[in-house]
């Protein structure tokens, strides 16, 4: 099928790929051997930097550069693989880990060696219990085969790897919250600076990377950074796994090169909406990206063009809504998710998500007025940029964009809600009534 370029997903349906023997038979762990035996860590690091590999978790920061921020020295340094994939619409890491766990382990070990790290963790979300079991087995195999542990392949390198299971909190995907959760605390984001690269896990320098990013590492090491740059665009080389879900015929993970038209992904690869339906709105980068409309389907799918369109590529998860979907309901569903997942540490996010949900509920129940839509918009503006981490913005941006782009639908929803449940306007919609004031004098 046109459009797919399988690098990470190569041999994905090979039976038994998750076992070390199959993985090795297909060329696995050769990159690690090469990295440990033939390249010295500094060179390794610079080749990762040269490759231009950008973080696949959402922010899109250069992975090699991030690793080079870690201070040199003998202090204990940590690597955390962020496998807390909780963004609605994203499921690429699950597939990467469950189908090919050794690719990830190999990437982790190489990255750890390159950055002089001795202790690595995989923070996997608690819901992925099955995947964590697969990963646990793979780590055991890797330990047994000497790819992980005290003296890897007799080269004197040490990398310990622990799979740490989360317990259900979206916020732990935020890198500093992930650190707190890994330290056994409530997963609250920390203030930045200090950045994790300087002072992260247990106060030590910490490199945090996404599963997909680390899974790319063996390929770069094996084939060289120039080879890697042959894929994708100049700014973001390599392939990208795009998760397509929602109102499409073939939801799933598609590994593509960035820059192909979005229409090709949604209609070409994923089959587009069911017969007779049209795309009405789509999230180009998970539920936290501002929505785009059908008019914007022909934009090339890349970091830059999505940013130009006022949205973002994020983790590369496309959610498609067709014309049967009510945007106010979609907005409420989105807001509810962030309201539920807000950690509660900073005020604008905690109260802003909470308030937005209440207002959207009123929109749907018909207790709102069009003026409330202005309040909703203004509340989203008040959240954006004022929070401790990006979770608040993640709600404010899509909800704000929905109100801006589909305001007529919200107004219609208010009307419809009012007709369905008529109630006098002067009656307070809340159950809190002020104490009446008696006649004075």
């Amino acid at each position, binding site marked *: 099928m046109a459009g797919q370029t399988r690098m990470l997903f190569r041999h994905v349906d090979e039976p038994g790929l998750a076992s070390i023997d199959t993985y090795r038979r297909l060329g696995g762990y050769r990159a690690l051997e090469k990295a440990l035996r033939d390249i010295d860590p500094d060179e390794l690091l610079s080749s990762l930097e040269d490759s231009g590999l950008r973080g696949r978790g959402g922010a899109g920061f250069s992975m090699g550069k991030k690793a080079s921020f870690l201070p040199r020295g003998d202090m204990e340094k940590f690597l955390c693989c962020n496998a807390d994939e909780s963004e609605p619409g994203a499921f690429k890491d699950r597939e990467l880990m469950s189908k090919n766990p050794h690719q990830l382990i190999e990437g982790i070990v190489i990255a750890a060696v390159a950055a002089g790290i001795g202790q690595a963790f995989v923070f996997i979300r608690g819901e992925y219990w099955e995947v964590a079991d697969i990963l646990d087995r793979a780590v055991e195999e890797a330990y047994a085969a000497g790819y992980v542990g005290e003296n890897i392949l007799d080269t004197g390198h040490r990398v310990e790897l622990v799979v740490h299971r989360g317990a259900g909190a979206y916020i732990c995907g935020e890198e500093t919250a992930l650190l707190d959760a890994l330290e056994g605390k409530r997963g609250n984001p920390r203030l930045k600076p200090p950045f994790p690269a300087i002072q992260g896990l247990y106060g030590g320098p910490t490199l945090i990377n996404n599963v997909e990013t680390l899974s790319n590492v063996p390929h770069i090491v094996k084939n060289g950074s120039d080879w890697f740059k042959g894929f994708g665009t100049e700014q973001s080389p390599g392939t990208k796994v795009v998760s397509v879900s929602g109102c499409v015929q073939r939801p799933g993970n598609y590994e593509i090169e960035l820059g192909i038209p979005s229409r090709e992904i949604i209609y070409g690869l994923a089959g587009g909406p069911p017969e007779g339906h049209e795309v009405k709105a789509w999230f180009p980068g998970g539920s936290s990206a501002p929505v785009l409309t059908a008019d914007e389907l022909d934009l090339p799918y890349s970091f830059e063009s999505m940013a130009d369109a006022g949205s973002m590529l994020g983790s590369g998860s496309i959610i498609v809504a067709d014309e049967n979907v009510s945007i106010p309901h979609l907005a409420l569903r989105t807001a509810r998710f962030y309201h539920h997942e807000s950690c509660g540490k900073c005020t604008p996010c905690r109260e802003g998500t909470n308030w937005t949900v209440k207002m959207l509920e009123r929109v749907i129940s018909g207790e709102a007025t069009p003026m409330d839509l202005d309040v909703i918009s203004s509340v989203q503006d008040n959240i954006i940029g004022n929070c401790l981490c990006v979770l608040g913005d993640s709600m404010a941006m899509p909800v704000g964009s929905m109100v801006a782009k589909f305001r007529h639908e919200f107004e219609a929803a208010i009307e419809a809600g009012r007709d369905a449940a008529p109630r006098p306007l002067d009656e307070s919609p809340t159950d809190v009534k002020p*104490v*009446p*004031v*008696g006649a*004075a*004098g």
Partner: protein
Amino acid sequence: MSPEFPYLPDEGVVVVQRGPEPGGVGGAYRAFGETLRGLKTTFARIIEGPVTIQYPEEKTPVYPRFRGRHKLHKFEDTGLEKCVGCSLCAAACPADCIRVVAAENDPDDRVSAGERYAEVYEINLARCIFCGYCEVACPFDAITMGHEYELADYNREDLVFTKEMLLAEPVERTPLRREGE
């Protein structure tokens, strides 16, 4: 410089224009006109009867916004006191004559609506200047200025009005003065 005496005519003498001679209609009007105009008001009031108020048998009427002795209020429906003992009146009082000591409500035996009620509420009327700031400050309209002004007493201590006294229906009602009266 005063002229020498005896002075001569035409020298330093100012000639003054004199009014008309008395007599005639004009003269009569000039003599009684203003007086009659005054009497018109007098006779007009005669038919209204006497204006002397037989105080203390009768009370002096006051304007609606007259600021007399304070009153505390209760909710008509629940009978709870409106005052929650927030002490804002005491803070606003320029004469420092209000003393509030609050206490916690017992939900089983509620005095006011909130958590708090005024256990002690005293106004020292000997110090009060009846400025009405307490009324303005009150967030619950619990205290208002009434129309009672007969507040003299033999003992200063008796001028300290307690909550119970302020809550009680006033015994004496003072007639209201209407606009234009």
